[in-house]
């Protein structure tokens, strides 16, 4: 079959083309490691100074609770004057101030306030550190409360799917979508435009071959390679970032396939517009890189975007894929949870493939 001749040729070319291999295999691995380690919202080793004016067993116990939490590194014991200096020079990020009557207040059952000074130049970090501090202090406080005096309503927060709130678990699925999107779009767009540029396209068009066979034959190898690449990323994420895999591999494969077919369709559409590899590369990056990074819920929650931007996200396939991927990987949820998202992915794929084939067909003859 003619389609097979095209696919076989394309496989051979991919195998021999360092640049394509680089885009398909090395770049994903590189982005995964880079982002996986750098894009980390977890905060550890916060430099902490202590201004302990009480110097009692109780105050030392509180300090120990901070240090033992693993979030703080005790770097200095300070008095009031030094506090300002160290904070100004960013030598410490947080200061715990324990007032002189701390242990006495505890003994007599009066409220015993302590102060936590935080560097708020990075709001996200400050908020997180404040959360850590509150948790530690609350824990410590419980030791002194008489059991009978327990408040009538207590909160026992339990965070499902990601109990330690590791941002990796939130980010890695996004990373998978991001990498798969870029590699699939870029490699497909380049492969067809390259044939236009080199004149091989014209030679093939001279053969009694319909556009569909050409396009499908060319797309199959990229589908196979990007699927393998994406699955590789999933496995690496499990090994390196402790990403769980709670759901069905089959459903994961289905979601990935739908997503990749859409991405390949987008690549085909670009190749029908661009005439040089350079243009194709730039357009491909523009339509895959930015939306997938910014508008998919990968980093920024869609719910907190302005309404107009939220509307735009409906056209970003990664948005749906992420819902499905997180549901499968983190929750082990079944199809009933994200079938609408899979449907949206399929819809996206159908639309771009239809547009691309109409355009390519028109150029074919």
């Amino acid at each position, binding site marked *: 079959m*003619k389609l097979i001749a095209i696919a076989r040729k394309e496989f051979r070319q991919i195998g021999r083309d360092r640049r394509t291999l680089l885009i398909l295999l090395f770049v994903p691995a590189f982005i995964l490691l880079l982002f996986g380690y750098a894009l980390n919202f977890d905060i550890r080793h916060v430099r902490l100074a202590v201004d302990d004016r009480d110097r009692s067993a109780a105050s030392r116990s509180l300090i120990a609770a901070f240090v033992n939490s693993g979030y703080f590194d005790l770097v200095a014991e300070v008095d009031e004057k030094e506090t300002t200096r160290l904070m100004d020079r960013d030598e410490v990020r947080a200061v715990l101030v324990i007032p002189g009557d701390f242990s006495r207040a505890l003994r007599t059952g009066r409220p015993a306030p302590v102060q936590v000074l935080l560097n708020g130049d990075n709001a996200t970090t400050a908020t997180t550190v404040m959360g850590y501090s509150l948790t530690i202090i609350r824990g410590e406080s419980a030791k002194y409360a008489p059991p009978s005096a327990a408040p009538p309503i207590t909160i026992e927060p339990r965070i499902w799917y990601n109990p330690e709130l590791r941002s990796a678990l939130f980010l890695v699925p996004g990373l998978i979508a991001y990498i798969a999107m870029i590699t699939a779009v870029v490699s497909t767009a380049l492969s067809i435009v390259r044939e236009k540029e*080199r004149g091989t396209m014209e030679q093939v068009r001279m053969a*009694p071959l319909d556009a569909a066979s050409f396009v499908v034959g060319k797309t199959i190898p990229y589908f196979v390679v990007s699927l393998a690449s994406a699955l590789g990323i999933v496995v690496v994420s499990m090994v390196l970032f402790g990403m769980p895999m709670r759901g069905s591999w089959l459903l994961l494969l289905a979601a990935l396939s739908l997503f990749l077919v859409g991405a390949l369709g987008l690549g085909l559409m670009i190749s029908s517009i661009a005439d040089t590899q350079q243009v194709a590369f730039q357009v491909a990056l523009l339509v895959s890189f930015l939306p997938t990074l910014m508008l998919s819920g990968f980093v920024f929650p869609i719910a907190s975007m302005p309404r107009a931007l939220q509307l735009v996200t409906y056209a970003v396939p990664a948005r749906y894929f992420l819902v499905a991927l997180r549901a499968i990987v983190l929750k082990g949820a079944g199809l009933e949870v994200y079938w609408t998202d899979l449907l949206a992915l399929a819809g996206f794929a159908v639309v771009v493939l239809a547009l691309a084939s109409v355009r390519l067909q028109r150029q074919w003859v």
Partner: protein
Amino acid sequence: MNAISVTNLTRTFGDFVAVDGVTFDVQEGEVFGFLGSNGAGKSTTIRMLCGLLKPTSGIAVVGGVDVGKDPEGVKQRIGYMSQRFSLYERLTVDENIRFFGGVYGLDRRRLDARRRFVLEMAGLAGRERMRTADLAGGWRQRLALGCAILHEPRIVFLDEPTGGVDALSRREFWRLIDQLAGSGVTVLVTTHYLDEAEHCNRIAIIHAGRLAALGTTAELKQLFAGRTIVEIHAGNPVEAMRLLDTMPEIEKTSVFGTAVHAVLKADGAGAAAPIADRLERSGIRVAGIAPVQPSLEDVFLEVVEHAGQS
């Protein structure tokens, strides 16, 4: 029966008329040359004949199939090779042959036979595993021809097939074209090497989208019947041309390599000596002067000039 029959073929791109009412026939087994400067409409014509481009108007019948109505049917019957050797450079010789065999839908047995034929023809036996990118230009060009005729088409289009290869490879390539024609294949070839055009049975000269002249080499040279062309080797060709242009018996002059060709208004081999005399008297050394047969280049220039005037 004609292999190719073209009637009033026209193609416009917006306001630009690339091919303008071209009419000609090509007989079976003929080597038909398409001559014209860049942008004259050669490639557009070929692309229409191959079913790649829809004619705006007019009819082209190739191998008995109307190109406008059944472009896919045409593709099955023809071979095409373009000025850029459109092979996959990262693939080996063998892989290229197998790929094009697959695209043309050859079955395994036929492909094996044709593969051997092409390797033999292109002189590539023993180099099947070489990457196409590593082949010298002449071999690559012969491989491209081989890939274009894998499916044994009865009509072959060659669009400036010899661009960018050395003279020896060009001569070898034309030997292959003659061989093809000898086996009854019709060859339509475009070129701007005028020496190559002499290999063709008939030549069409295209200028500004129009068919400016058509005939055998001998017929085309009849354009100069009743006029003589004198070739002059002068010490200072530029100054010689200026002087020649002022002489009453000379119609026009043109540069021809390092020599000057002067077209006389009338037949007269005897005119050479007086012309030389006058040049010498004006201080131009004349190394040689003699009447010559009109070359295809003379014809081409004459035709293009006339087409430009009308």
